[in-house]
């Protein structure tokens, strides 16, 4: 286990309040403490780890590489007549911009959690 580092004024993205006054104590693989976080925020920070819990990628139920999965995804989206890009709640603005660009490039549908 590497040395414990403290991150001040970290931002919690569990809910829409997006508190930015959290102090995180992390060993790089696991967050041990999330000071000032609420119950929901604590669970959010403490439940994620740097462990490899899941396969990198799965296609048709079989484990595969990210690169392979990206190629399959690109083929499927490209071949579709009306692809849909949806979600974008639990992700960064930078990823969201890529998603809008994807829907634009695909001439597809684009929608977020807001419409639910």
């Amino acid at each position: 286990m590497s040395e414990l580092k403290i991150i001040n004024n970290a931002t919690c993205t569990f809910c829409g309040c997006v508190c930015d006054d959290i102090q995180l104590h992390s060993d790089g693989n696991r967050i041990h403490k999330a000071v000032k976080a609420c119950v929901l925020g604590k669970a959010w920070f403490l439940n994620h780890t740097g462990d490899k819990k899941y396969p990198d990628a799965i296609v048709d139920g079989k484990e595969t590489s990210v690169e392979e999965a990206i190629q399959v995804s690109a083929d499927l989206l490209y071949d579709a007549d009306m692809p849909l890009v949806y979600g974008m709640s639990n992700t960064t603005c930078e990823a969201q911009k890529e998603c809008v660009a994807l829907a634009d490039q695909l001439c597809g549908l684009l929608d977020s959690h807001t419409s639910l």
Partner: protein
Amino acid sequence: MSTITLTLKESPSVPLETEVITPDTVADLSRSEIAALTVYHGKRVCRLDDFFDIDGEKSEHIEIHGDLHRVRMIGKGMSRGSLSITGNVGMHLGAQMSGGTITVNGNASDWIGAEMTGGLIRIHGNGGGQIGAAYRGSLAGMRNGTILVDGTAGLEVGMRMKRGTIVIGKTVRDFAGLQMKGGTIVMLSGAEIRTGAWMNRGTIISCQPTQVMPTFAYSGAYNPTFVNVYAKHLTQYGIDLPYKVSAGTYSRYAGDMGVSGKGELLVWNPV
């Protein structure tokens, strides 16, 4: 009278946008020109004859057959002629039309006659939501014309409509006449809830008991003369609107007080 007949080959896998199917577009076109009209199948740019068998040419009377539930925008913006549809049809039927007639033997989806300014749409089956409504953000829905639906209708019927008539045969869902500014909605079988919410002007007539918003004030029972006139006008479409004093009276509710509205909701009380 010659007719152009379009028969859907098979139901498209994703929505097909066919605003080119209007009498105005095809009136002067040959069969091959009609066949080459552009339609959008999802993201693909296609020809009309990729999806339809086409018979006839140069006419402002169109008949369409098939399962058209994914075919959208038929008759959009048309100003003349007739469209006769056999089968269920998709969204935006006759939206923004200014004249002519559309008849559907089947159901039609949302946005029938949205923002229309004239003409007649008659649906013999059920209609969807937002009939004669304003598109999101627009200040006004239908400005004139007539929409008759024999069956049920969905949400927000006549939303922000300014003039014209909508008649719904069976039950209407929530928010009929939402933010209505004028015109008339007749509900032969009543509605679910929030009828006339935020209406400013206009008339909603319910021929069955229906729930009234708490922001409508009861203001007496009577038999308004204009209903008489209306009823006679609607008999030509086979619609039977009660108006005889001997048969009952209308309870009048004024509202919506939430917006200081001067609209009225008339609910028929048979004797």
